[in-house]
C-alpha cells in the first residue's frame, strides 16, 4: 500500500560539541528533560501527525540509538499499518561506504523509499527540540503544489549569519539560499525540515550522486540545485518553541526552558504528547529533609537534598545536604552528601563525590562526567 508521506530522520551526526555526552552514544540518543531522549521529539511529532512509516538514518555510535528506536513501539509506530526502521550504512554490490552527507544518506536508501512508494517525503533532523505536527506544513505544500517546502524559523537578523538563510518573496516563495551569510538579507533560518515531492527528490538525489564535486548535502547541493532549475520552493514559517541543541550550553538552556511557563513542557502537557520510554522505576521519593522547588523530576529519582531550578532524570540519587541548582542531572547520576552542583550538566551514571563542588560561574555551564561502576563505590 502506498503511503502519503514517509518521514526520514537524520540521526547520524556525531555531535562533537556535546563533548563527553556523545562519546559513546549518538546525539539524538542524549537524555533530555528528565525523561526523554532528544529523538523522542521528532518521532513523537511524526506519531502525532499520523505518519505511519519512519526511517531513522544513523551512522555514528548507532548501537544505543538503534536499540532505543527498536520497532518504534515507544512512539506507537509499530501498529498494523506502521513501520519504523533504522537505516545504517551497509555493504552493497558496489562495496561498503559511509553516508557522505545528508543527501547521500537518503540516496543510499532510495530502495526503502521506493518500497514505501510515498507521494511526499519529510526530512527531519534527529536533534531538535520542538513539539508540533507537520499537518499545516503538508497542507501548505499541497495547496501550493510545491516541489519542496522548507520550514523556517525567524531569528534576530544580527544572529542570522550563523544559519542557513532563505530569502523569500511575499508569496513565501523561496528566491535565494544563503549558507551562513556574512551580510544576511533575510531572517528566515532553515530548520532542516523539508517536505519534498518524492518523484522530484528522487531525480535530484540520483543526479547529485553522480556529481563528483558535490558534498551530497541538502543545504549545500540539493536545495541550491532545485532553486537553480526554477523548481517551486516554498518557505513554511514555523511559530512556536524550537531549539537546536548542538552545544552543552544550548542543551542546558533547552532543559531550563522546560521550567518556564509557556514553554515546550506546556505544549507537551496541553497538546501533543511526547512519547518516550517509561522505565521500570520505583516511585519518585522526596525525603524528610529535602527541599525541591521550580524543578522537573522523573520517576525513580530519590531526592534527599536540596534542589532548585533543575531537571532531574530517573534513578538519580541526591543525598542529604547536597545542593543542586540551575542544573541538569541525567539518569542514574548520584550526588553525594554535601556536594554542590551549580550551573552544570551531569552526565548519565556520573558520581559527584561527598562534599565535592561542581560549579560554573553564573552565565556559564559546565559538563560533569565521571562514570563510576557501582560495584567500585
Amino acid at each position: 500500500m502506498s503511503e502519503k508521506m514517509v518521514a526520514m530522520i537524520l540521526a547520524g551526526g556525531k555531535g562533537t560539541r556535546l563533548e563527553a555526552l556523545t562519546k559513546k552514544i549518538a546525539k539524538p540518543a542524549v537524555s533530555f528533560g528528565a525523561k526523554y531522549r532528544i529523538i523522542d521529539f521528532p518521532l513523537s511529532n511524526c506519531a502525532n501527525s499520523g505518519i505511519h512509516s519512519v526511517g531513522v538514518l544513523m551512522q555514528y555510535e548507532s548501537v544505543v540509538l538503534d536499540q532505543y528506536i527498536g520497532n518504534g513501539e515507544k512512539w506507537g509506530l509499530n501498529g498494523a499499518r506502521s513501520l519504523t526502521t533504522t537505516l545504517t550504512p551497509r555493504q552493497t554490490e558496489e562495496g561498503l561506504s559511509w553516508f557522505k552527507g545528508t543527501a547521500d544518506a537518503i540516496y543510499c536508501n532510495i530502495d526503502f523509499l521506493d518500497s514505501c512508494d510515498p507521494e511526499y517525503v519529510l526530512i527531519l533532523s534527529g536533534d531538535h527540540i520542538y513539539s508540533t505536527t507537520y499537518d499545516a506544513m503538508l497542507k501548505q505544500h499541497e495547496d501550493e503544489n510545491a516541489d519542496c517546502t522548507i520550514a523556517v524559523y525567524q531569528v534576530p537578523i544580527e544572529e542570522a549569519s550563523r544559519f542557513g538563510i532563505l530569502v523569500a518573496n511575499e508569496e513565501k516563495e523561496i528566491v535565494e539560499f544563503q549558507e551562513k551569510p556574512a551580510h544576511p538579507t533575510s531572517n528566515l533560518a532553515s530548520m532542516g525540515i523539508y517536505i519534498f515531492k518524492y518523484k522530484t527528490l528522487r531525480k535530484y538525489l540520483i543526479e547529485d550522486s553522480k556529481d563528483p564535486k558535490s558534498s551530497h548535502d541538502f543545504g549545500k547541493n540539493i536545495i541550491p540545485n532545485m532553486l537553480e532549475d526554477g523548481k517551486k520552493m516554498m518557505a513554511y514559517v514555523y511559530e512556536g518553541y524550537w531549539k537546536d541543541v548542538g552545544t552543552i550550553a544550548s542543551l542546558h538552556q533547552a532543559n531550563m526552558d522546560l521550567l518556564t511557563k509557556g514553554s515546550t513542557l506546556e505544549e507537551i502537557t496541553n497538546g501533543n504528547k511526547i512519547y518516550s520510554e517509561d522505565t521500570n522505576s520505583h516511585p519518585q521519593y522526596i525525603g524528610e529533609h529535602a527541599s525541591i522547588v521550580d524543578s522537573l523530576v522523573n520517576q525513580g529519582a530519590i531526592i534527599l537534598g536540596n534542589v532548585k531550578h533543575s531537571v532531574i532524570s530517573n534513578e538519580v540519587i541526591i543525598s542529604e545536604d547536597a545542593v543542586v541548582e540551575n542544573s541538569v542531572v541525567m539518569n542514574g547520576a548520584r550526588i553525594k552528601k554535601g556536594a554542590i552542583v551549580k550551573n552544570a550538566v551531569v552526565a548519565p551514571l556520573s558520581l559527584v563525590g561527598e562534599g565535592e563542588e561542581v560549579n560554573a560561574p553564573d552565565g556559564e555551564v559546565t559538563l560533569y562526567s565521571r562514570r563510576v561502576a557501582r560495584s567500585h563505590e
Partner: protein
Amino acid sequence: MLQMEKLHYIQEGWQEVMSKKIIGFLDLYNSPNLGPLTETRTLGSTSFLGHFALMDFSLSNFTNSGIDEINILVKDNFRSVAKHVGSLKTWVSNTKIARQNILITEKGIRNPKDNTELECLLQNDWVLLEEKADIIVLQPAHILTTIDLREVIEEHSENDADVTVVYQHIKNADETFSTSNIVKMDGNRVVSFKKNTGKIKESNVSLEIYVIGNNTLKNILHNEEYMKLGSMKKVIERLVANKAAKVCGHEYVGYARCIDSFQHFVDYSFELLDYNIAKDLYGKDWPIYTLTHNTQPTMYGESAKVKNSFVANGAEVNGGVENSIISRYVTIGKGAIVKNSIILTGTYIDDGAVISNAVIDKYCHVACKTHIEGKKTSPVYIEQGKFVK
C-alpha cells in the same frame, strides 16, 4: 563448596525446575473488601504508591521467576482489570512464546452461585490441557510480597508434595493477615491449616501462595465435594484435616503484608515511605513491572514544599506535601497543604485547600481553601469524581 560450583549447582537445579511446565494464576477471587476503594474496581487494580496497581507485585513475581504463562482469575469488576493489564504483555519475557489470559467463568455470570475460584479454574481448564501443565502456582493480589517462586517450586519438587503452601512467621497475627489461615508445621508437612481467628499473636500465617501438582489439581476439579467448597483455601483446609494429600510448607522470611482492610491499605502505603522498609519490597534486582502511561516528569513550582512523600510523574506540585502519596496527573495548587494523605490519579487540589489524613479517589476536585481533615486511625475517604467545597 566453591563459589563457581555452587553457582553451577544452583543453575542445574533451576534448569530442572524450569524444564517443568509451570502455569501461574493470579487469583482475584479471595481479595478482601477495602470498602469504598474496591467498590468499582478489584483490589488488584487499585492504585498503590501513586505508581503501581496492587496486582503488579504478584504479576512481577511471575515474570521475575521466569514464569511466562500468566492467567488472571477475575471474579468481578472485569473492566478495571482489563484496563490495567491490557494484553498482559508488560509482564512476559517473550511475547510470542508466552501465554497470557484473563479468565472469567461464563457459568458464574449466568448464576452467581457458580462464580467461584474453583469453577473458574474448571471452566478454563483448556489452559491446563493446552499447555500440558506440570505445576500450577496460585498467587493472590492482596498479599504484597516479592518472592522468587522458583525456590518454592524447587522445594515442592524435592518434597514430592501434592500442594505446597507459602507461609511466614509473624508476631502480630491478632492484628494482621485476618483473612489468611494459620499454618501449623511438623517438619516440612502442614499439619493444621485453619482460619485465623485473631486470637493468637505469634504464629505462621499463610501467604495464600499455593504450588499444586497438575494431578492434584485435576483430582480437586473433578471431585464434587471439593468443588462445592468453592475456593482452593477451603480445599487445602480439607486436604490437611483429612490427611488426603501431601501438603508441605515453604517459609518465606522477606517482606510480606496483607492488605485486608482499608486501614491496612493506608498504613502499609505510608509505611513504605521509610526506605529501609521499601527496599525490602522493591529491591534492585527485582523490577516491578507496571502499565506505562507516557506521563511527563513531575513538575515542582516555585512555592512547592515537599517532604517525605512519593510523587508520580504527571503531577504538578505548587503547594505543601508531607508524608503523602501523590499519583499521576494530580495538581496541587499554591498554598494548598496535603498531609498524611493519599491522592489518586487526576485529582485537582485547588489553591489554599488543606487536606490531612484523607484518601481522595480519582478525578476529584477540592475547591479553594476547602478543609478536609480526618484522623490518623480513620482517614476520610472521598469517592471518585467528587467536587468538594
